[in-house]
């Protein structure tokens, strides 16, 4: 489903320093697999995720999504992105639209569904994430946890093949983290291919097939969640885990 080969990415900061955000990152992710990405701040987790749907361009390497090289010259990027949902730390709901309209917009203008069909899909997904009763509210009237569940529904409405989560629960008050994680777990169990950047090791243990630990733009260690709990090999991983657990 996802095949990354030797991805490199360097940022130039405003003060002209070079930051190596991705250094020779290679990974293969199967259909239906749930991969959790962990690592300290600035280790390149978000950059990796954002390269998967080309919100960020890579400097070199190759990235195949479903066999399609998405960094090829003549690629219809919008078509690629329709198939890849992304959930952000700060939700990024459209504040000028109601909950229902948030879930409808891309269905109608990108997927070209008619309003009735789109509304049916939207309602069933809002029901699934447990927020149908708020369909006419505006995002500002919702709690963080509710907003994030709407954001997940908005992505799912496109019927993506892959879902990317970038610290989807990091901006939430503790009592709301659970409701969002529940939705994510449900998705994982249904067989969605997921790449999840998170510090929630409970989530990793419960539903992930694989955990990768990144540092300084590199994948330092890779294994099951169990492996990371019981005998992580690198000293850096041990130190990091001791800080977050």
């Amino acid at each position, binding site marked *: 489903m996802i095949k990354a080969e030797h991805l490199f990415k360097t940022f130039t900061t405003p003060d002209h320093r070079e930051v190596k955000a991705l250094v020779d990152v290679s990974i293969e992710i199967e259909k239906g697999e749930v991969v959790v990405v962990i690592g300290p701040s600035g280790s390149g987790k978000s950059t990796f995720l954002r390269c998967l749907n080309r*919100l960020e361009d890579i400097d070199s390497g190759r990235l195949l999504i479903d066999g399609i090289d998405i960094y090829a010259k003549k690629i219809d990027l919008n078509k690629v992105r329709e198939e890849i949902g992304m959930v952000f730390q700060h939700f990024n709901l459209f504040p000028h639209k109601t909950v229902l309209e948030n879930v409808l917009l891309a269905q109608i203008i990108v*997927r070209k569904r008619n309003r009735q069909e789109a509304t049916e899909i939207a309602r069933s997904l809002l029901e699934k994430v447990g927020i149908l009763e708020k369909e006419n509210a505006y995002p500002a009237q919702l709690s963080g946890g509710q907003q994030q569940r709407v954001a997940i529904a908005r992505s799912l409405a496109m019927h993506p093949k892959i879902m990317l989560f970038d610290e989807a629960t990091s901006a939430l008050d503790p009592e709301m983290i659970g409701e969002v994680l529940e939705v994510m777990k449900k998705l994982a169990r249904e067989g969605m291919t997921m790449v999840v950047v998170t510090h929630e090791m409970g989530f990793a243990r419960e539903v992930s097939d694989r955990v990768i630990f990144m540092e300084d733009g590199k994948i330092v260690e890779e294994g099951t969640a169990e492996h990371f709990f019981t005998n992580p090999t690198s000293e850096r991983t041990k130190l990091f885990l001791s800080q977050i657990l």
Partner: protein
Amino acid sequence: MHFNKRSLITLAVLAAVLAGMYYFFTKRGITYIWHWESIPEMLFYRGGKSAADPSVHLRMGILMIGFMLTLKISITATFFAIIIGTIVGITRLSSEPITRLLSSVYVELIRNTPLLVQIYIIYFFFGSMLRLSAFTAGTAALAIFAGAYVGEIVRAGIQSIHKGQMEASRSLGMSYAQAMRHVILPQAFKRIIPPLAGQFISLIKDSSLVSVIALADLMFQGQQAVARTYYAFEIYFTVAALYLVLTFTLSIATQFIERRLAISD
């Protein structure tokens, strides 16, 4: 209709100034014979089109005719200024260096030369080349002038929208244009209503400058009436009041729209 405190204070100050001036002219020995009675017929009168026309109809007087033209010029120029400004605001943020350069050259040229000069250049140079009427040339000059300022306002509005909005839209498969149209611009416009309204109030006032190319707007008709009657005070006060009607209505309409759009906050 609700008036806010600031509008009420404005009205109160205006009334006080007028009362003061009246006192000054009547009680302080300056002898000026007022001819207010000749003003109403400059707004509306009953009668024929000309002295030879025997029909009796309610007709617009000279100032009202000018007022209607000012209204028409202002509305047309505002409409095109919004279109120009939106294009300029977007192209100012383009990733294409040439597009970006062209739009900033436009903005800098327009903002750093006097409007009066622009009106003359457009009327005499482009107007004679392209055979434009005074109305077209004058309105175009105003739209091009205001468009540069609106462009800067729109650019600031777009930049004030968090970049997460564009990223969320693009990651849902929207094109840049779709994201702009459905997500970024609606939010940006809502945010820039106050400075936009200020700009359009300026446009209404600036429109008085088109009288220099013999476009018979409110200002021009006022000057004509003064030349004929010498009632300069009465006529210019009336002209000022008529401009106030336009600007004040716009400012109240803006407050109304702002309140309506505040629902999703």
